[in-house]
């Protein structure tokens, strides 16, 4: 097995903008969730400050995806409290739509809209949710497409792009809504090794600009270089969290040690 904690980029990461402020971006208090009778998330407590870059790791079925999907209410929690940007997530549809338009999300399978061009994918939500004029939305979209380095693909359809390009479009699409928080749900798990790097590069640039990021991933190199905090989950619980250096070099829990020994292939 390759060492997935190897550095994901050769260049020096610019940390001047990466500042963790005291302002709370997301607060999760005693959150519980069940799928039917199955207790999938157990007593989750997590506070994310603005500017934090958090990587969530864990074996499959540990509830890490479910947890970040609760943050923008793609999954409903049954107990506890989630506050995003000062707005509590309740069944009030207005709050949910407000939070969703402030929290960007990228999925494992991109979930681009195949019947729309790349540009239309990026302008759809700003036009219909933010009521931005079409011209302005297109200018913003081209700006972010340039940022993810695919402005020349703007008039193509998602089906004509490679996986890595599609994931970068998905990131640009989220950024067009000018989100304050970005959630990544295994953004590189469906990609070839060559494409993983281009997506991670885009994510690193985003981190360098000070975006608050929560990222479920198996890319331990990204965690080591970019994250300021790594969370390890198992059986629906947060088992261990620490700064990346400490987490990788000096894991406390037996479960974490086992997981790391397997994933890092020592």
């Amino acid at each position, binding site marked *: 097995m390759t060492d997935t904690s190897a550095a994901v980029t050769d260049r020096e990461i610019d940390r001047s903008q990466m500042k963790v402020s005291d302002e709370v971006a997301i607060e999760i208090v005693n959150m519980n969730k069940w799928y039917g009778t199955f207790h999938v998330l157990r007593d989750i407590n997590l506070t994310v400050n603005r500017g934090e870059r958090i990587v969530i790791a864990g074996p499959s079925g540990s509830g890490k995806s479910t947890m970040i999907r609760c943050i923008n209410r793609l999954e409903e929690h049954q107990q506890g409290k989630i506050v995003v940007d000062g707005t509590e997530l309740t069944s009030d549809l207005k709050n949910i739509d407000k939070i*969703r338009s402030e929290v960007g999300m990228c999925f494992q399978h*991109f979930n681009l809209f*195949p019947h729309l061009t790349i540009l239309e994918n990026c302008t759809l*939500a700003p036009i*219909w949710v933010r009521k931005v004029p079409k011209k302005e939305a297109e200018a913003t979209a081209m700006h972010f497409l340039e940022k993810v380095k695919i402005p020349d693909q703007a008039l193509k*359809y998602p*089906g*004509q792009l490679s996986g890595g390009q599609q994931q970068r479009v998905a990131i640009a699409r989220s950024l067009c*809504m000018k989100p304050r928080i970005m959630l990544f749900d295994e953004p590189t798990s469906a990609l070839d090794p060559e494409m993983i790097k281009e997506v991670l590069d885009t994510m690193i640039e985003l981190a360098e600009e000070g975006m608050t990021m929560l990222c479920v991933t198996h890319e331990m190199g990204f965690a080591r270089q970019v994250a300021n905090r790594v969370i390890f989950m198992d059986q629906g619980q947060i088992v261990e969290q620490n700064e990346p250096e400490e987490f990788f070099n000096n894991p406390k829990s037996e479960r974490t040690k086992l997981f790391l020994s397997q994933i890092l292939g020592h």
Partner: protein
Amino acid sequence: MSDTHAETVAFVRDTMLPQQEPPASTVGFLGWSKTNLFTGPFNTIVTVLCSVFIVWLLWMLIPWLLSPTWNATSLGECREFLVAAGRVGEHGASGACWGVIRERWIQLLFGFYPADLYWRPILAFVLLFVALAPVLFSDKVPGRLLMFTMIYPFLFPWLLWGGTIWSPICAALGFVILFAGVKYLSGVIGQLASIIVSVLAAAAWWLFVSGAVQDALASILPLAIQSVPSRDFGGMMLSITIGVVAIACSLPLGIVLALGRRSDLLIVKSLCVGFIEFIRGVPLITLLFVASTLLNIFMPPGTSFDIILRVIIMATLFASAYMAEVIRGGLAALPKGQYEGADSLGLDYWQSQRLIIMPQALKISIPGIVSTFIGLFKDTTLVSVIGLLDPLGLTNSIRADQAWNGIVWELYGFIAVLFFIFCFGMSRYSMYLENRLKTDHR
């Protein structure tokens, strides 16, 4: 691979091979027939047998079709023409009797519609294509034509049934009330309340006010064209009228039913499921009989409700139930990620349905939707059982004529060709549309 050396494992190509023409036997007509008609002995035998059968069929059919009876005025005269032309086989004179089509084709097209007013259904039919053009060929026709598409639903019945011009205008005013209410009230009393209020206002306008306004306006400014009663409608004109209106109404109704069936709201869901299952469980003929006879029993005495309108409503309800199931299939085929993608961007339910889900679900369902359309159009011939004179109903009255008693094949053949033109047109259009909307590049 002559430059590989069997004795060594290492290999380096020193010259790159240029592109070559494919072998002659795999391209052109020869290549095509070899791969499609004559692959192996079994396919060759099938090809030969089918060719023989087609030739035999045409051998029998063409002489029957090419029969010199165009000018005959009765079945007996047809026989005389055939005998005179020496077309006498062992079963008597053989050949089609085309005189009936020459004499009655206009009736098969228009039924008993007044002859001096034929221009009205013809105009309505031509304008139908003008109104459909911006919808069907949105990439080639200027969008401004959509204005005409919105006017057409009011123009169409006026041209066919005639009467005062104020009735379509008053009907349209109801929709103006509806949209204006939703647009201007939603800021004041909220979206849901404004929809409810506007619908009630529009319904009140149609039921209680518009009739009086219409009469008043007509007495001030009597602009009217000659009105034609529904019993004079017939032939292809009737089929097309029922078919077009039912097709146009069943698609939106089907979409609403399909969404309702997938809704989380228990009452909405059970209403939709109940409606769909009931309509699909009952034959169309039963519904048509209900429309023609039973409905009058439930109506308050004295109300007359146009028979063609009743039939259109039943045909629409019938088709919309099937449509709902076809569209539900399209909805089920969409990956869950599309809903999540739309949700994660903050689109609300109706926005994500309209912008993300429906365009894709409808695209997937195009073959099924068009099949339902074609089925509905052909089902319009069932109205002959409740006494409306669609083309099939007219064949009976034509055969009741002494001169054409006993004629079958020519009439049904002619009607079949008429229906085939429309159905084949729809089918080709659906293929064109599927191609145009193909964006997945598989």
